[in-house]
């Protein structure tokens, strides 16, 4: 039976009335009309649906919407400040870290989550941070260059 819930998405309080089995991903896309977050598998295998939930990157397809009740979610739509891109978005643009763009929101959110965490930005850690995100177009070389460039904007050193 449908129940109501509230989630702060990109700083704004959103309410929805959804079935208990509804995922956070479907709630964002179908109920809140925020389609920037992508569904690639709905099984937690591809990472295209990655969002930040209470500051941590999660596969939103694996999170029940009601379990995110009263939580804070940041999606790809919430990164830019008006026309000004988030440094991670800017790096993906400048370094060609995207092609078809379908995995891009997830890769960018995973990268933002990594940069906001406290892991050292070594090559190995960067690859691990992206280890849950599949990309079929780029072969990852330019994605990793973009992530390193984004790391550099935070003043931290990469290898």
């Amino acid at each position, binding site marked *: 039976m449908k129940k109501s819930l509230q989630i702060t998405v990109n700083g704004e309080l959103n309410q929805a009335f959804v*079935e208990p089995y509804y995922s956070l991903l479907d709630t964002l*896309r179908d109920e809140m*009309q*925020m*389609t*920037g*977050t*992508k*569904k*690639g*598998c*709905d*099984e937690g*295998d*591809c990472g*295209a649906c990655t969002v930040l939930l209470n500051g941590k990157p999660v596969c939103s397809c694996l999170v029940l919407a009601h379990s995110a009740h009263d939580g804070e979610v940041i*999606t*790809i*739509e919430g*990164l*830019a400040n008006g026309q000004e*891109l988030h440094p991670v*978005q800017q790096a*993906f*643009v*400048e*370094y*060609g870290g*995207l*092609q*078809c*763009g*379908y*995995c*891009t*929101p997830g890769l*960018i959110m995973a990268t933002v989550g990594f940069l906001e965490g406290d892991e050292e930005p070594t090559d190995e850690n*960067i*690859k*691990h941070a*992206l*280890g849950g*995100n*599949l*990309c*079929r*177009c*780029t*072969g*990852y*070389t*330019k*994605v*990793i260059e973009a992530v390193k460039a984004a790391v550099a904007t935070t003043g931290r050193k990469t290898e």
Partner: protein
Amino acid sequence: MADFQVLGKSHIRVDALEKVTGKATYAGDVALPGMLMCKVLTSTQSHATIVSIDASAAEALPGVRSVITGKDYPDAWFGSGALKDRRIMARDEVFYIGEPVAAVAADDEVTALEALDLIKVEYKDLEKVVDPLQAISGKSVEIHPDMEGFEGYGFALGGNNCTMLDADRGDVDQGFKDSDVIVEETYHTQPISQGFLEPMACVANVEANGRLDIYASTQGPYQVRSQLASVLDMPIGNIKVTAMEMGGGFGAKLRLALEAFPALLAMKTGRPVKLVNTREETFTLNGPRLETNIYLKTGVTNDGRILAREARSIFDVGAYLGAGPNSGVGHGLGAYNISNFKLRSYGVYTNKIYVGSYRASGVADMTFATESHTDVIAHRLGMDPLEFRIKNALSEGDTGVSGATLPKNGLMETMEALKERMGLPKKLAKGHGVGIAVGEWRSGSGPSTASICVNEDGTVSMLTGSVDISGSDTSLAQIAAETLGLRLDQVVVAKRNTDMAPFTGPSGGSRIIYSQGKAVQNAAEDAKAKLLELAADRLGVSAEALECSGGKVYVQDNPPQSMDLGQLGRMSLSSRGGPIIGTASLSSMPYAPVFNAQGVEVIVDKETGQVRVTRFVQAQDVGKAINPMGVEGQLEGGAVQGIGRALSEEILIDQETGQVRNASLATYLMPLALDMPEIETILVEVPSSDGPFGARAVAESPGFGPPAAIANAIYDAVGVRIKTLPLSAERVLAAIQGRDTDEYRVDVDELRAAEGP
């Protein structure tokens, strides 16, 4: 070389901002008022007659608006490839597990799924065949006994062999007689998925005037339009297809896919209908590549000249002939000049999902075989593999397998670049190996159109019917900008549909920059000529005295005497010729080959058989890199797809039923960032004579070499030759332990005999 302003410099993609902000709209993001959701019921049987379908319980379920079966479609055949051998939805017979038999439109997806469970289909099983080698042997059931009646049928051996292609030259028997060494081998490649990240999706709507409005994830909107028209038996003019942003296709989205299901349901209900595949359905509802068995026999002289080649390649096409076995002949020789050959390629029906296209269908399979074989021969002769390749390489003026004369190309330059970068030949430490392979392709041709309008502010609007594929819109805009002397941001790239833009071929086969780019260049030249003509009239000079650059048309001998493009654009509105539109249309482009030489270094763990690629270098002749960052990106991505094909990817098929067993991304193993080395890419630029600014194709070739290069490196590292893909740890370990890994045998004598004397 001309001094380019926009070309040859890396540019940010024209669609980058919308893609990093989540604003890009894919077909699955489309939502229309009153929209219903569609789900498809598929066959549970490998091969069976449909005795009855009872949908009454489904139709009675609240929220269900329509249920359709194959008999609701006109009695029409269509084809994904050369033969019209399919129905859009099964009518009387199913040919594989997963074949669509019914579809439902309901208020929401959950109701649609519930309705599927309520549809009762009664089947009567028929004899089936899953193994293509058995299917071609003549000792199994004939899946399509009436295939000679299929439109497009050409020549085949009969049984389940639905098409046989051939190419012959010289005297192959004499070539083998004159040879000092003959090497005869069979290779086997695995079923594989295109692996696009965006599942197939479509929204169909019927407009007030009865026209169908389709929002699709497609590489070929005009192909979807015409195939949809044939399966719905309606005029092409009654269908509009809007190609939305496409989340990867790699050949899988070249033709009509699932659009006909929501389309008919929209016609039945009068409401918009949406269908989005699940990830599982991307493996089971949409044609992948199936297995290939490739027999090769090559004769060489002791000093390393290839004299003769016989190749017989058996392509499992599944239930229907999708992308056919063309590469079995077209790529049976590799990048080498061989004057005596006999090439045969067979498409074989089996009770499995039909094959689709994937990044130059079959060429990666052929290249695994031919380029592994090349190394085997070189080693047999005691020659360095690269030197052996260089000695036999095609060169300008040679006759290619198709009979076309090879124009100027960069094959030698790519091999030299690889040699230099990797320091070949070299011997690595024990357990480490180095291997190379060369891939060959041609720049894609086909109908291409473009128009360019000059706007009142001096910007131009570029309209093409082609779908952006891996940044092609950006490169096309660069071509327009360079031709007209504009900045990239002065070219507006129109988002288009089939009503708005004239016909163009699909975005596939590496044809967009070479052919569509040529159309854009010609359209820009046409617009430029009209601008010069108008300016000449106003400035009182001849058009020949003028040049167009920097957003101005100016007198070459007196640059201050000029008019800017905005002025001309505004003036044109009331000029004799009217607003300025440059147009271009072409149907084919000359043969322009593409070569890609690749080298890998690997470490093989002798305890586990695990292979790790530690270095990957590729050099490709791209003719002219329009947008180097985009070109590198395509080459890197293609190479990684090839590494996945080499090491981990495989669709597992149940050998009893033909069913796909691993329809998920947890079990179909595509490369992750963790698995991949940095891809080092060298852009070689030997201009083509006809491509825009000398450009050649880019996208297909990088995926060809990795399986053979890695197999060759494994041989170099641990001395075992593996002829079956993928080169999994289990298989490598088995080979290291001396167990037989060549599980597949082609009965070549039978194939020879079937052809007659």
